[in-house]
């Protein structure tokens, strides 16, 4: 427990990181790998929320659930990278703007 730091400090920190992660998804349409990294940032923000609430309510359930979220984030990152590799083999690039191919 940090003195002078309230729970809302952690909530606002998690919100900022969540917003940065969400903005990374729709600002990086040229680069699929950065989209995956932004999704990892979103997972990180949720983990910060979980652990902060777990400590400020003196309840261990938040940390246990944060471990499960870590597992899911790892599995999702692995499958996302596998899909990225297949996409790269098909399209020779990791741009997911489909507009040039849908015209005509």
């Amino acid at each position, binding site marked *: 427990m940090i003195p002078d730091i309230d729970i809302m400090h952690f*909530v606002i920190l998690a919100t*900022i990181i969540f917003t940065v992660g969400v903005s990374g998804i729709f600002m990086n349409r040229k680069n699929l790998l950065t989209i995956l990294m932004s999704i990892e940032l979103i997972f990180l923000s949720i983990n910060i929320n979980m652990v902060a609430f777990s400590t400020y309510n003196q309840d261990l359930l938040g940390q246990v659930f944060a471990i499960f979220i870590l597992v899911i984030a790892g599995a999702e990152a692995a499958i996302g990278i596998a899909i990225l590799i297949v996409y790269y083999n098909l399209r020779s690039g990791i741009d997911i703007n489909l507009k040039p191919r849908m015209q005509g």
Partner: protein
Amino acid sequence: MLFSTILFYQFSILLILSSIFVVFSKSTITSAMFLIFAFVNASALFLMIGAEFLAMLLIIVYVGAIAILFLFVVMMLDVEAKKEYNLKKYVPVLSLVSVVFVTQIYIILSNSLKPDEITGKAYFFLKHHRMPDDISNAKAIGNILYTEFFLQFQLSGLILFVAMIGAIILTLKESDNFKKVQNISKQVFRRKEDSIEIIKVKSNKGLDV
């Protein structure tokens, strides 16, 4: 202000800055490096707050496995440079997202401990797991994780297994250039009668093979 408060603000500001640089940097490898930095700062925050098992788990799993996987992909694939970002167009959407997020958590926080009007019970749906003072964090989490949440623990292992199978199936390619295999015994046991046939060809008459 105490030193730990200053340290909290330092780690949070570094975390926010590095996450902004993950999104807005020009090259992918810099994004991956700033992602690692963000994870390390978040792990430091977890350490300060008293969740040291989860802090180390973040370093081992996120930095040591997932971010290294991202670096492998960056090294393997040929990624072109990113263009400029049009931030002004997306400011209303982003502010809406963050306001909704904060409002939801604030509503939950302010209503979570009020008793229900009809039944009179407070909203304690889940059992409260006390954080003990005498044993370490890892031991306390282990006391809960392997007894009460054993089913969830096994299911998370199953999820990882399914993810591994999925990743392998997605990237497994059947090899289409077969290696020429020599059958040595077949070559050695070749007989003259099987391989050569001498045919007398009549002139002006072809050969019917």
